[in-house]
């Protein structure tokens, strides 16, 4: 097992950041950790990378403690924000990170993989947000690690930069395990082999994107007309208005349609389709409230 959390809990004073969470990352897996802000994603990653200690339960990295330097020889981590020492150059930072590992990737190759070759002599202070994120993510792979941990690798990037970064990560991730957190659900859907959803320190779901959708049977219903007042209170049902249409995400759209017809509510142009991951996710975190 690459990474293994067993009933891990962590509190900050009276705030319970993780509440008995268990999940694992196996060899070759790309695992996304999804959750709203304050869900405990960062705390989980801090414990996985040795920055913090669990209050209860065990977190094992390669079977040992993440606090053990020897275990971290097989781990690569992305700096959380792009705060590099201002006066260092891109290639100096990459070489510095690599120097800690026995089988570091050659600096030139890594820069090439992450599209940083042209920037290699630039001081980090002069990099744009996207360039800086690419450097941060590249650092996680510098030591040719068995597990790369990326904390919100694409936060604040535009769509094109995100796509380019993920192309680089996917090719760098071959033969490796990757654990990442993200706010972008389509990013998890497109890149992760497994998704772990956490909210308020608890695990709500653990499986692939398809299972996440089918397990919660999420469907998306939309029509031109007024929303049903009664439906908004139902657990697992989210109702929104978009472009003059009412959009309903629910695991039982049939019930909604029946209520619509029986109540005599006027509607036109009704559509039902499988829900997006985003909608499934929203209803998951709704249900847990």
């Amino acid at each position, binding site marked *: 097992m690459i990474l293994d959390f067993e009933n891990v809990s962590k509190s900050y004073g009276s705030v319970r950041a993780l509440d008995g969470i268990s999940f694992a990352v196996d060899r070759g897996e790309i695992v996304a950790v999804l959750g709203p802000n304050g869900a405990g994603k960062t705390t989980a990653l801090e414990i996985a*990378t*040795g*920055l*913090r*200690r669990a209050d209860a339960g065990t977190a094992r990295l390669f079977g040992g403690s993440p606090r053990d*330097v*020897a275990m*971290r*020889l097989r*781990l690569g*981590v*992305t*700096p*959380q*924000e*792009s*705060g*590099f*020492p*201002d*006066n*260092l150059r891109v290639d*100096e930072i990459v070489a*510095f*990170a690599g*120097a*800690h*590992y*026995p089988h570091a990737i050659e600096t030139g190759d890594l820069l090439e993989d992450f599209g940083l070759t042209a920037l290699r002599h630039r001081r980090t202070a002069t990099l744009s947000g996207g360039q800086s994120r690419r450097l941060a993510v590249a*650092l996680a792979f510098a*030591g040719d690690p068995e597990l790369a*941990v990326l904390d919100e690798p694409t936060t604040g990037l535009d769509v094109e930069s995100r796509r380019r970064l993920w192309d680089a990560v996917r090719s760098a991730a071959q033969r490796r395990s990757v654990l990442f957190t993200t706010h972008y659900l389509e990013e998890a859907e497109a890149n992760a082999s497994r998704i772990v959803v956490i909210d308020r320190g608890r695990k709500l779901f653990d499986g692939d994107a398809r299972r996440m959708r089918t397990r919660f049977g999420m469907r998306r219903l939309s029509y031109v007309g007024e929303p049903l007042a009664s439906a908004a209170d139902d657990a697992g049902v989210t109702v929104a208005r978009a472009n003059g249409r009412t959009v309903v995400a629910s695991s039982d759209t049939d019930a909604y349609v029946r209520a619509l017809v029986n109540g005599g509510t006027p509607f036109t142009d009704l559509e039902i389709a499988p829900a997006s991951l985003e909608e499934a996710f929203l209803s998951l975190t709704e249900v847990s409230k």
Partner: protein
Amino acid sequence: MSPIRLAFIHARIALLDLLRSPSYVVPTVVFPAMFFVLFDVPFARSHAGVANFATLAFIAWAIVGVAVYQFGVGIAQERGRPWERYQRTLPVSTGVRFAARILCAMAFGLLAATCVALVARALTPIDLSGVQWLQVLAYAIAAGVPFVLFGITIGYWFPARASVPVATAFNLLLAYAGGLWMPPSDLPAIVARISPFLPTRQFGEVLWSVTGNAVPAGAIVGLVLYALGFAALASIGYRRDEQTRYA
């Protein structure tokens, strides 16, 4: 990766970053040599004894400056940063990283002290022998320890923003009142009275002993006490920071 090699790699990257940063290089490396020229060269130009005394005083001040900026400002500014967090996820121990910080500080201390010595050689009739210079080197490293601990205390007890004025104020006031800028006998009476109790004065006394003065027992005791006191404060600050950020 051998810990010693890793310590040198960390020291090298810190040196590169600092050497390219004028806001660090000017106060630590340029100021001691520059103030030496402005304040003391006019008096030391014609007399070897005065030249020896003044040069050693400014070497002491150079070391103090590196200790308070490198450790005080350095730690205060780095400890909350993402880059510090990132480095803690690397396979490197805290001990190796601390050793790197010491190495980097020694390199800067040597650089700052050498600048003072070169200016003194060029402009004054300083006449220290090779053996005496080696003594200066050894004494400066030993007597620099309490200042390193003082710097670490500043680094963990003050936030980044406050660390620069705090380090600067202590650095300048202690240099003045410790008699490193002018002979202690020229200090105003009230300052002269507290001067012997200040660590900067005690540091000066230790270096001045190289020129044949008696080895100052009081100064050594004082420096040891300061070292113990700041070691205690520094470790409280360090533990508190570890507790809040990395427990």
